[in-house]
């Protein structure tokens, strides 16, 4: 069966510090991968998606970036965090069909 992992679970970082969140998927190959953010009291905002190694599409321009160095690894990064980057970050995957996306446990990021 497939499993999706995210770490760390929680993170407190000062403004201006770098960020690296990691997501890995087990039990499947060539998944479509996604990074979402849920700000407090808001819905799920798609940040990045990837259909293959090195292929990244950005949905929202911001100071975040994403990379996919391996087939089942998706990394969310920032060089300098802003207060507005605080939120709950979720990684998700789908085989493409069916269309259901499967989410990881999330990372709670607090920028202070």
């Amino acid at each position: 069966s497939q499993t999706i992992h995210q770490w760390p679970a929680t993170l407190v970082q000062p403004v201006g510090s770098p960020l690296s969140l990691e997501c890995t998927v087990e039990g499947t190959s060539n998944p479509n991968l996604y990074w979402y953010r849920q700000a407090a009291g808001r819905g799920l905002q798609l940040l990045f998606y990837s259909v293959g190694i090195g292929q990244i599409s950005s949905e929202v321009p911001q100071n975040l970036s994403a990379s996919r160095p391996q087939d089942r690894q998706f990394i969310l990064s920032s060089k300098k965090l802003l207060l507005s980057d605080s939120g709950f970050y979720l990684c998700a995957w789908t085989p493409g069909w069916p269309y259901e996306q499967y989410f990881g446990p999330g990372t709670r990021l607090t920028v202070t």
Partner: protein
Amino acid sequence: DQQVKQNSPSLSVQEGRISILNCDYTNSMFDYFLWYKKYPAEGPTFLISISSIKDKNEDGRFTVFLNKSAKHLSLHIVPSQPGDSAVYFCAAKRGTSGSRLTFGEGTQLTVNP
């Protein structure tokens, strides 16, 4: 532009009664719709989906209805249980968007014992 809208931020029902969660969309190109359930500090879990060629899909206590002319879908939970208390998100996929989903803002359902 919020293409998928859940206009009720919260809903409270009694255990055993029906819960009806609503979702409206504006993009007529959406061809597949999904509902997710989310507990605090966890990732959303998939509940049920429906293709635009159908108007109803049922899975146990969960039924999703789609009214394409009104661009409206709803999730019915019967009977509601306290463990159903969570945030429910509807999501939609455009025919040309690959597997990308557009999510609504979510509705907090509280089922009271």
